[in-house]
């Protein structure tokens, strides 16, 4: 079924002719990216790249009312739809036929309540833009490690994790407050305090928390459930001092004030010792962020250093990996570096305290701890060096599990075992690119096994995930995006329960599944 003239005219009447188009070039620009993540339910499972279909039209609403009207038109004419804002990754359902692509980029309003630590945000506001506004007010937000260009709204209701999850909530669901949501049926459903006022300051209730129907945290995109047009998002106290930006492409950074921050690299003899220490660090409640640093990351960082005549870019990366960092990793793959940012919020005496505690812990766990000379950040406050993982070959994906750190450690072994089968399509990493990040002061954690390849070999990434799935379900792992066919029955037969509830929100089954 193509887009009928009547349907197109109906869409035009909502936004005006300038903001809707079925021109092939406009629709081509909205087709799915060839790159995929393990979070993409349409990832290739058979070793082939999936077809890259084109939406039948793109439409750009500016208000919630327009979004609602568009969704109702889709319901009337049986058109599939998907919403996107900054399009940091392919939303599920992007590959369906007869797709109306609802681009929310024009919805860019932002209000900040400094006293009460929340902001009201529309989908077109990127995380780094919000961070820029907040930092000059002595506040901060979570910026995902996938990039500061991610939409605040989309990231918060879908994933929202990174090294700052150690302190700022394991994923976006911890920070989403009131919500304004156009369901797949075209109803406006307001959640939390927004339900009975225009205030977004709180997310729970009234009564049962219907954010449970929306905010998925990696187990299914909210794109499946309609269009979220506004959220209240939790923001956090921060320091008064400014983080001063320095440098130019490719090496830019934020200079961290020395009385408030200190980076430490702590090298542990084994991965287990690092995990044990991270648990303890969490229990002692020190640091703003904490994570292990796979050796690969050191090569990445050097690759982004500018240099006149030195190697730079991917050439520098491979030179470093092949000749320096890689051999060291191969020789001792168990040796694990943790990186922690100590944090003097409230008083700079806190920084001294945190340092003493950290050194005490390192002594207990046999780590050598060294303060970094540089006091800069490129990764966490603005996520300016995101996606650099693609520099190696052009494509990467991750096998991700969110569970306890101990669980993550064991699951990593499964991923590494299967990875070996897919080398050389995947780059050899000697089993060292498992990345562990504690969340919520180590009450939870993430293991992300970064796997790199080239554009030509990206099918190998899908095959790897397929292999891992079979062992994960046997071992009782809890990966980020379970294949329904593999996990559904084993996990409380949830698809059947879900299907019935989704009918409430999407009776015509037009949002992606």
């Amino acid at each position, binding site marked *: 079924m193509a887009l009928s003239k009547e349907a197109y005219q109906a869409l035009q009447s909502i936004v005006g002719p300038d903001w809707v188009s079925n021109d092939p070039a406009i629709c081509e620009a909205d087709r799915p990216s060839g790159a995929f993540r393990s979070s993409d339910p349409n990832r290739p499972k058979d070793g082939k790249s999936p077809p890259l279909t084109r939406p039948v039209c793109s439409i750009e609403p500016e208000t919630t009312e327009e979004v609602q009207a568009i969704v109702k038109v889709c319901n009337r004419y049986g058109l599939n739809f998907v919403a996107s804002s900054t399009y940091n990754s392919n939303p599920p359902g992007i590959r369906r036929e007869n797709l109306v692509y609802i681009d929310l980029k024009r919805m860019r309003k932002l209000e900040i309540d400094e*006293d009460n630590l929340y902001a009201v945000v529309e989908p077109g506001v990127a995380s780094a833009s919000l961070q820029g506004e907040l930092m000059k007010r002595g506040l901060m937000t979570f910026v995902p490690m996938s990039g500061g260009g991610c939409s605040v709204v989309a990231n918060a209701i879908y994933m929202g994790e990174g090294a700052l999850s150690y302190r700022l909530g394991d994923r976006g*669901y911890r920070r989403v407050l009131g919500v304004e949501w156009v369901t797949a049926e075209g109803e406006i459903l307001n959640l939390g305090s927004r339900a009975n006022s225009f205030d977004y300051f709180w997310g729970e209730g009234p*009564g049962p928390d219907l954010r449970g129907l929306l905010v998925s945290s990696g187990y299914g995109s909210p794109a499946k459930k309609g269009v979220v047009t506004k959220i209240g998002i939790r923001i956090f106290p921060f320091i008064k001092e400014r983080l001063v930006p320095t440098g130019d492409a490719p090496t830019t950074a934020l200079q961290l004030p020395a009385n408030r921050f200190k980076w430490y690299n702590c090298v542990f003899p084994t991965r287990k010792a690092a995990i044990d220490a991270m648990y303890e660090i969490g229990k002692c409640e020190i640091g703003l962020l904490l994570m292990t640093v796979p050796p690969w990351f050191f090569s990445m960082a050097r690759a982004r250093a500018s240099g006149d005549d030195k190697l730079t870019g991917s050439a520098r990366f491979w030179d470093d990996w092949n000749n320096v960092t890689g051999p060291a990793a191969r020789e001792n793959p168990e040796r694990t570096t943790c990186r922690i940012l100590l944090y003097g919020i409230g*008083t700079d*005496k806190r920084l001294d305290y945190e340092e*003493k505690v950290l050194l005490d812990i390192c002594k207990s766990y046999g780590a050598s701890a060294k303060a970094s000379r540089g006091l800069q950040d490129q990764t966490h406050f603005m996520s300016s060096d995101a996606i650099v993982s693609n520099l190696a070959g052009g494509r990467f994906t991750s096998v991700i599990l969110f*569970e306890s750190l101990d669980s993550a450690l064991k699951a990593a072994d499964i991923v590494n075992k299967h990875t070996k089968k897919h080398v050389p399509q995947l780059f050899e990493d000697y089993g060292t690119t498992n990345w562990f990040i504690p969340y919520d002061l180590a009450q939870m954690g993430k293991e992300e096994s970064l796997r790199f390849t080239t554009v030509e070999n990206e099918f190998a990434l899908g095959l790897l995930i397929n292999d891992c799935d079979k062992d994960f379900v046997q071992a009782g792992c809890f990966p980020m995006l379970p294949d329904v066919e593999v996990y559904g029955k084993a996990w409380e037969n949830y698809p059947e329960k879900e299907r019935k509830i989704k009918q409430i929100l999407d009776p015509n089954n037009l949002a992606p599944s």
Partner: protein
Amino acid sequence: MAIKEELTGIVGADHVFDDAAKLETYAGDNSLSAPGKPSYIVQPKSAEEVQRIIKLANNNKLPVTPYSSGIHFYINTIPFQSGIILDMSKMNQILSIDERNRMVRIEPGVTWGQLQAELQKYDLMAISPLLPHPLKSALTVHLEREPRLLPKFEYTDSLVTMEVVLPDGELFRTGSACVPGFPDNSLSQGVNPSGPGDFMWNRLFQGAQGTLGVVTWAQCKIEYRPKVNKTFFIPFNNLSDAVNFIYKIQRHEVGEECLLLNNINLAAILTEKWPEDFQSLRKSLAPWTVILILGGGKRLPEGRIEYEEDALNEVAGELALASLLTSLSGLPGIERQLPDMLRTSWPKDRTYWKFSYQGSCQDLFFLTKLNEADKFYQVVNKKAAKYNYPAKDMGVYVQPMVYGGACHFECNFYYNPANAEETNTVNQLYVEAAEAVLDKGAFFSRPYGPIANMVYSKTANYTATLKKLKKVLDPNDVMSPGRLCF
């Protein structure tokens, strides 16, 4: 087979009751609501028994009202449409304490005091609400999203995973507890609340007041219990100044427990000899007191207290505060006792603090922003004046949340339950005050009793979606019918 026989076949004769005396003890609660008329009291001892009871209820279209705490205040266990009261108190095991991940798995019958006493052996604690009744179910505290004394963002979303008997009798586990073999034979340790699948199921069951299923265990976050503490009492003459202080100190992320009480409530909590000490204490206390407890960390505890006290002094200097008290006159040693006192339930051997003053208490509470607290205080005071309820007799408790990003605002209308006129007055005051604050933007995230009707009449689509959800999960409408908007 008669219902009672079937129930007996499930739980045993010692755990099924239908005699009038027993039924009456479960029929009402400590709220102003009229009691219900349950038909049976059933005490299951396992999830399997709960499942069978629920299935029986479905087959016979019998309402089921879950009941875990031995005492209730908010109408959420009154059976509006008769049926079975599912007394979960026999399921009272602490199933596991996971020190490493700082999680505890508990059954519904575990009381707050029981839980904290056990956790203290490991230098751990659950984050407490304000002095819960000794019979209070720890699981219910989490399930009903009761406000906690530590406003740290890191400790929020404390209910992680759970096992639920759904209204159709099926057993369901949420989050990463859903994997086969949990907890003994899986890599998952039940610490991820998301899913399974596209929903965060654990959120749907929270705040549901038993209408969407029966929780048979829950895994909740626990934290390190400071061994070294320093208690501060910061007095204020008015609510606005107290709020201003809270905003500033929370911005420094300093302190463990942080709460604001007016003199009535603080006196009610601290008085040991009633009634003589109460009157003198309420007069000697400042109109408002912020209690701030600095707690030492797991390592180098004194170091943490030192820098936090530094920050506190800085804030005090900025605000030109007259005093940061580390003791209270007439209460020697209270500063040392208070941390432990606040980290457990009210002692069993003393009259509950909310009953000591007048005999009973009706609580009006909602969420708002700290800088609106005074506005609501004035609104309630005005209503109280209309009913000649003396404002000076009203308790107020303000609990900052998430570093001052919001607060739980609570007014406690103390009254003598034996005095019918007083009871009636407080009932009317309660309802009118609730309407008035709702009109001014108060957010009742936990709407109980008559407030539920007020709230759901203003949230059309939310209400409609809840009803649709209920229909899917509970097609026979057996779970707590008549509650919330159902």
